[in-house]
């Protein structure tokens, strides 16, 4: 496993070169690799002293932040769940796949390549410790350090397929955890061959594989055009791109669009690719059913009215062997909301972090950049990552960069508003359609909970029906359940950002050599509670009973 936490290439005594971070509580001595004492023990199981900055996520935002911070002299630890840096946008084949032209599947490859070079150079110089295949499952304030006001953070991660527990200590944290796709269920969406649109793109970019030979692309948002173009370029036939929004929605938002000529060119490039590959673009239409027994064999495409209700009599069957579907993206916020960071509702109806102009969250010591602050694309993520790093390092924010961010945010908001799902999409669902894929909860059961049992929010529906209690913790069904309950989808509230082996939970902080007492835990999780992979770990705990394993309670 390359770059594992025990990698000897990361010496424990890597120096913090350059000036100390001024914006960070400067307690460099707190964990400078000194011999373990109860209060001063390094909880970093990688054996390194506390980083000046820990970055979670190595997508465009996290990468830009990490290299900028290292340029400014901070010692940075980057943790990313993926095997390679790049996140969703710069997802690329492993070196072993021997792709001579990875840029063939990318826009802006050069921007990634230059940042990856800087990352590797800083890594060699010991300024950046890059931990790939490290999934951070929670971030907590270091109770021991907090007592003396040093404000350090502990990041608990699972490393590699063997899920080794690793804890990293840092004085500042940047959450650049990106987004996942918004899925709106429809009959047949659990059939094999129905895959996420971004998911198909991700599998193509990293594994050079296609979900089928004839792939319908459907949903809403600009990502669909990119996906259809890539699938076609890679050899799939794409009979149609089915977009639920009407492009006339853009009409009222021209100023924001016109101030971003670069983004318009990008859009035109995608449009050109569709024309070149002979792909039809159907707007104000949706896939309202997928057909097949063992896998998808055809889809039904229906026209939609203004509210996304299927127009009766317009259904048409389109044969295909795969469907790539997604309705935009949802910021991935569980680490942030677990820390208590404030959220807001974005133009496209999802929850995103409240951030100030320096990319600070509402929790001192925690910064964020990229899709977590609202969906906005790779260029915006790069700009925000750089701004965040400068802020962490206590440097002024370049005016040009601040303007660039504002311009790109305005563009993103215009797009988000244009593609925001209309309320009528729930008309696609029959009572038998599974809304929650993990727990297999059909729409009828959710509707019953709302109608007969008086559930008025997603949380109550969840408790009554188990929708959202499974493995994915509502990532796939959360938006749909909220819509059926007639409320706005809330921000991610999950005490753990991924399932965690029970042993690690029970032994939190689980850092060999770090005394368990370092985290004052109100109550360890009870084994029978945590052993049910579909149980809700904390929200059904009695009020005032503390929270599982020192984790914030579900509010």
């Amino acid at each position, binding site marked *: 496993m390359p770059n594992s936490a025990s990698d000897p290439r990361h010496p424990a005594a890597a120096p913090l070169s350059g000036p100390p971070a001024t914006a960070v509580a400067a307690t460099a001595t707190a964990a400078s690799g000194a011999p373990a004492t109860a209060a001063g023990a390094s909880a970093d199981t990688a054996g390194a002293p506390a980083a000046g900055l820990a970055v979670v996520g190595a997508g465009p935002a996290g990468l830009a932040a990490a290299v900028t911070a290292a340029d400014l002299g901070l010692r940075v630890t980057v943790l990313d*769940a*993926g*095997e390679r840096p790049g996140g969703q946008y710069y997802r690329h*084949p*492993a*070196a*072993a*796949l*021997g*792709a*001579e*032209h990875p840029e063939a*599947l990318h826009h802006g490859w050069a921007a990634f390549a230059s940042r990856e070079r800087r990352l590797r150079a800083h890594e060699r110089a010991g300024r950046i410790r890059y931990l790939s295949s490290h999934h951070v499952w929670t971030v907590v304030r270091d109770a021991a350090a907090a007592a003396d006001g040093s404000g350090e953070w502990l990041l608990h991660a699972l490393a590699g*397929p063997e899920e080794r527990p690793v804890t990293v200590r840092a004085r500042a944290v940047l959450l650049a955890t990106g987004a*996942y*796709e918004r899925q709106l269920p429809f009959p047949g969406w*659990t059939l*094999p*061959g*129905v*895959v*996420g649109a*971004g*998911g198909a*793109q*991700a*599998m*193509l970019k990293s594994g*050079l*594989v*296609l*979900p089928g030979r004839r792939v319908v692309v459907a949903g809403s948002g600009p990502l669909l055009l990119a996906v259809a173009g890539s699938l076609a*370029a*890679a*050899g799939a036939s794409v009979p149609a791109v089915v977009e639920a929004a009407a492009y006339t929605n853009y009409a009222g938002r021209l100023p924001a669009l016109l101030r971003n000529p670069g983004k318009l060119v990008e859009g035109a490039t995608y449009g050109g690719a569709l024309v070149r590959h002979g792909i039809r673009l159907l707007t104000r239409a949706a896939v309202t059913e997928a057909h097949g027994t*063992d896998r998808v064999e055809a889809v039904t495409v229906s026209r939609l009215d203004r509210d996304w209700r299927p127009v009766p009599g317009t259904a048409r069957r389109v044969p295909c062997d*795969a469907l790539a579907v997604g309705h935009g993206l949802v910021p*991935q916020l569980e680490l942030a909301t677990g820390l208590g960071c404030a959220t807001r509702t974005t133009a496209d109806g999802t929850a995103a972090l409240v951030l100030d102009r320096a990319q600070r969250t509402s929790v001192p010591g925690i910064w964020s950049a990229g899709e977590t602050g609202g969906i906005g694309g790779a260029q915006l993520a790069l700009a925000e990552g750089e701004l965040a790093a400068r802020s962490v390092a206590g440097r002024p924010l370049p005016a040009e960069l601040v303007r660039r961010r504002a311009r790109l945010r305005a563009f993103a908001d215009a797009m988000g508003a244009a593609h925001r799902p209309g309320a009528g999409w729930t008309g696609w669902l029959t009572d038998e359609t599974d809304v929650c*894929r993990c*727990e*297999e909860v059909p729409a009828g059961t959710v509707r019953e909970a709302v109608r007969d049992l008086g559930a008025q929010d997603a949380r109550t529906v969840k408790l009554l029906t188990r929708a959202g209690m*499974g*493995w*994915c913790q509502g*990532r*796939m069904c959360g938006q749909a359940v909220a819509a059926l309950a007639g409320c706005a989808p809330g921000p991610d509230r*999950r005490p*753990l950002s*991924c*399932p*965690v*082996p*029970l042993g690690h939970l029970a032994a939190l902080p689980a850092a060999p050599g770090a005394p368990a007492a370092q985290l004052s835990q109100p109550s360890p*999780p009870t084994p029978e*509670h*945590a052993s049910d*992979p*579909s*149980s809700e*770990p904390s929200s059904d705990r009695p009020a005032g009973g503390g929270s599982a394993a020192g984790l914030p309670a579900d509010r």
Partner: protein
Amino acid sequence: MSDPRDLVRGTPDATFTLDFDGRALPAQSGQTIAAVLWGAGIMAWRTTRQGGSPRGAFCGIGSCYDCLVTVNGRPNQRACLVAARPDDTVTTQEGTGHAELGV
């Protein structure tokens, strides 16, 4: 253009076979287990706990947990995240796979 590999001029370092339920599937070093399965036209490799319905990779990025698979006897691995390795034995997974996790 008929194959994604042609587009990026992919010539993998190594090819090997992955043992999937006793079948030998062609794999390239650097691919995830999900990519190897998709490459072989296999879209489903587990059944759900209640309905027993077939599932495979859906989100492709590790968030949906639909692609769970048993790798070398270790259940509940996300096939879309785990790299395929030459000596791996991969088996379809039914129901919970009997691993205990807290979510």
